[in-house]
């Protein structure tokens, strides 16, 4: 089974970040508080389903689905 990523979450679903699928992207995401072990919650989606909004470490982070797909969760 392929790894589940943040892009696969349903609205309101929580998950814990495990690892990243892309090194360059992970640098940007780490700085924004997407750390391994951090809990995230998919809090909303833009009208066309992309970008998505993530509740991470107490604030709202908007990112594209393709970027969210590099954040693997448990």
């Amino acid at each position, binding site marked *: 089974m392929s790894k589940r990523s943040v892009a696969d979450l349903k609205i309101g679903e929580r998950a814990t970040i495990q690892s990243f699928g892309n*090194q*360059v*992207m*992970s*640098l*940007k*995401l*780490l*700085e*924004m*508080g997407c*750390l*391994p072990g951090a809990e995230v*919650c998919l*809090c*909303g*989606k*833009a*009208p*066309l*389903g*992309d*970008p998505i*909004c993530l*509740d991470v*470490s*107490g*604030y*709202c*982070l*908007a*990112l*594209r689905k393709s*970027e969210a797909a590099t954040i693997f969760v448990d």
Partner: protein
Amino acid sequence: MSSPVIALVGNPNAGKSSLFNQLTGLRQKTGNFPGVTVDKKFGTWSIDAQTVATVVDLPGVYSIYPKSLDEQLVTDILANPDHTDYPDVAIVVVDASNLHRNLLLFTQVADLGVPVILALNMLDVAHKQAKEVNAVKLAMRLGVPVVRINARTGEGLDSLKKAVTSQIQEPTLPGKLFFDPADEAPGLIADTRQQYGLDNNYLALQYVIQHDGFTFLNRQQQIGLDALIDKYQFNEQTFQAGETITRYKRIAAIVAETMTNQRPIGQPTWSQKLDRVLLHPVWGYAIFGFILLLIFQAIFAWAQPFMDAIDAGVAWLNGQLKESMPAGPLTDLLTDGVLAGVGGILVFIPQIAFLFLLISLLEESGYMSRVMVIMDRIMRKFGLNGRSVVPLISGVACAVPAIMATRSIGTRRDRLITILVTPLMSCSARLPIYTILIALVVPSQRVLGVFNLQGLALMGLYLLGLASALLAAYVLKLFLRTKERSYFIMELPTFKLPRWNHVGLTVWESVRSFVWEAGRVILAISIILWVLASYGPGDAMDQAEARVRQQHPTLATDQLQNQIASERLEASYAGVFGHFIEPTIRPLGYDWKIGIALLSSFAAREVFVGTMATIYSIGDGADEEGVTVRERLQQERNPKTGGPMYTPALAWSLLIFYVFAMMCMSTLAATQRETKSWKWPGVQLLYMMSLAYLAAFATYQFLK
């Protein structure tokens, strides 16, 4: 009197700009950072009787590893003690409601060895979220002064003053680095320190990782650092990832000790509730569309009474001058040349003010970020980015700051495409032309009770600009290929009430620079034009007058004067010039008078109206009072057909021409500066002018 430099550093939305406004009040200026064209905001702050500090507001960043060009600047300054803006003290503004993430940047700045003060902002927001921060504990754990402030109300500024004073007199630095790279890569750090004469381990690390972006290092030094990386087989990305994780771990421990968080998990804040509506599949776009419509209504309908008042004022002044001054060339120059030209600009102040008022309200409230989110998916299709929305919307005001705003776009290709298409957005300089021509051909009627038909026509032109910008972006996307991955990662700030003084400053700044920048060009061109239109080669103008008198001996004085004036203009230098280019613009429906205006407006579009004012008030002859350019154009007759000169076909052709035409030197200069090449302004000029010519040609031929 000493004058230390104080830099404000912080995450976006942490309240830096609020603090900046609090400290500097109206004593602020904008300029460029030396060597780059990012807007630099600086102002003065009287700390005490002896000390007036220079406060520099740096771009908001999440870390000192830059993701975009404007972020690069922060590291470029903080890592270079020889920089003119290198601070004596850096005030790091942090959002207490998001302490965890905000402290990342703080620890990095502190590790660079800059004397820092932590300004704990937004404690009220944190309090509402049931979070309390113990500032004393935090100061002890971090080893630096921590000051509680409220940047919106100005609370805590006295303590900040004291902290800054003591940091200047006797800088206290944390005893040891928060993250010491020598723990992980001792050899590399030691070698770098020794070769580059550095005494800070973290600064040495920045030399290693960021040397390509550091403008203060020469080629030789950069190559030397590459060699060091090879020698130690150093992997920058892995190391940086490790650094971030380590920092966050230590921060988490500190936050756990200094902050209590009793916020129930999973309870949505009111920002999130609002987002459910604003990001809604249907309502999200509907609201955005409604707001855009509102902006156009404001520009066109609400600004009208103010514009009429200014118009009347200028006409009155013109009349007064003509009466009180002796008739002669000097009076003519002042009234028909200078006042006619400048008056044509002053009249657009209300529209520009309304536009910037609304745009700055959208930015201030936090709504603009939502627009970026809902537009990203659509923009991506065209090779743009959600972040391109701000340049495109700002382009409605002026392309020059809009092009500079593209610096926040991290991907090079997305940024280049945004720069190239932004001038297609109808800027405020086109407004004068649009307004006058629309008023000529579109009746002022109400539609559906609320909307003004002219307002809708105006909106149509703006939409045409937008559509062409998107289309051009799509075409450019096909030509510009790149391996670089486009990305969009952005914090959505919580909604806030706008800071009215901030909004006021933005409006004031934009109006002032519009009047000042545009006014000077227009003044100069008005004078040159007046001279060109008042004098001709040899005695051609006098001959023309004599000819008219001979041919029409029976004409009434008024009509005779008009005829004479018109023939004299045709014989003048300006007339000769206009006739010279007439063949090329004839297919678009233009005559030589419009030709003169087209030529002079190559410098800046807004010159068009000033030129028309100059040309037609000279052609007018008799000193009618209070006649606006629009009314004058309405009266203009086509010498061949005897009907009105400004037929709908001609007016629409001109309108369409100005929708597309690249008639702005400043924009080309901005593109050149931002892309650092002449190729892209060249491409821009060429494709936009061809588009303008062809579209205007098609419009005229179709409507004729």
